[in-house]
């Protein structure tokens, strides 16, 4: 009887370790997708360059991401976040092999939360500017430039999607790490 109870305890411990390992593998998977999303956003915004076909003698009508400081911040933030995600892949693989690690998990939660805040700041600031470019504002006399710079507008609006997907994945990553921490 006692051997059977010991065996049962051993089996439940094995399944618990299996669940922990499954969560760590899911964590790695989410990180890889988030890398693709944020890198795609940075590249999509960074390669915007639209020149309108008409021009006067003095000025050419051209729009790039660097003309608006908010978009520059967006590209920089997405680049930093995807670089951090690539570096944290190593930490994630370490967690798959060693499920007991606690201090490194807490450090990972802290950095994930900080990077999520950076990504959200970039994405929402750009969203505000994109909204302004689409709708304009009558009170402040800001003209909606999307009527002229069509392709520029489409590019910038599309690059926001990858960034917001990255934010959702970061929330899931923090939840996974916290669950893995509390299950020990």
């Amino acid at each position, binding site marked *: 009887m006692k051997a059977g109870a010991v065996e049962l305890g051993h089996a439940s411990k094995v399944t618990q370790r299996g669940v922990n390992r499954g969560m760590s593998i899911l964590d790695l998977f989410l990180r890889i997708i988030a890398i693709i999303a944020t890198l795609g956003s940075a590249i999509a915004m960074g390669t915007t360059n639209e020149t309108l076909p008409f021009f006067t003698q003095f000025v050419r009508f051209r729009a790039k991401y660097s003309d608006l400081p908010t978009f520059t911040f967006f590209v920089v933030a997405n680049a930093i976040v995807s670089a951090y995600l690539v570096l944290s892949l190593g930490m994630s693989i370490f967690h798959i092999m060693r499920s007991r690690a606690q201090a490194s998990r807490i450090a990972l939660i802290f950095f994930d939360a900080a990077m999520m805040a950076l990504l959200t700041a970039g994405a929402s*600031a750009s969203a505000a500017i994109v909204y302004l470019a689409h709708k304009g504002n009558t009170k*402040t006399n*800001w003209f909606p430039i999307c009527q002229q710079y069509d392709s520029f507008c489409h590019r910038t609006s599309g690059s926001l999607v990858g960034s917001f997907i990255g934010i959702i994945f970061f*929330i899931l990553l*923090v939840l996974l790490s*916290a669950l893995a*921490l*509390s299950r020990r």
Partner: protein
Amino acid sequence: MDSKSHSHETAINISETESNKGKSTAATIVATTKAIPHNHKGGWLRGVAIFDFILRLCGLVAALAAATTMGTTDETLPLFTQFFQFEASYDDLPAFSYFVVANAIASGYLVLSLPFSIVCIVRPHLVGARLLLLILDTVMVAFTTAGAAAAAAIVYLAENGNSTTQWLEICQQFGDFCQRASGAVVASFIAAVIFIFLVIFSALSLRRH
């Protein structure tokens, strides 16, 4: 004899050893040294929970200040034409409206999470409440940072304008409006940083030994 003993098991260990006096004293020595870290850890968890509660109060003050400062912006310029008056308030810009809503929701969430925080102080070893607070705090970090960053982008645009898009800077005319908006954005960023600290403290107190 297993070494993973809680404070209850030490009593059983003492009564077991009857044959060898030397062994029983060794067992009592082992038992007492194992009992102390358990209570000490409970005290540390309680300290973290109290600090968490205080941080929540500070975050509540910051988010509430941001929402009310932005919500009460209403500047009317002394000059006006026959047809319309030059006035600016927060609901003229949708980013500012979202800012007020996000900070109001963050303040409401902080008020509702105060009882959970008190529960964590009273019972330091409760895992479910801390986990719930951690995940909701993470969502609130994203929410608050989004509102603050959107409003910051609009304020930056209002102060500097943009040459490519021909957007003129309005802060030269609406000076007071811009100042209040900038102050509200700063308060909201402080609230977002406090939320990040709350996440870290919840994570610190979640780990098991």
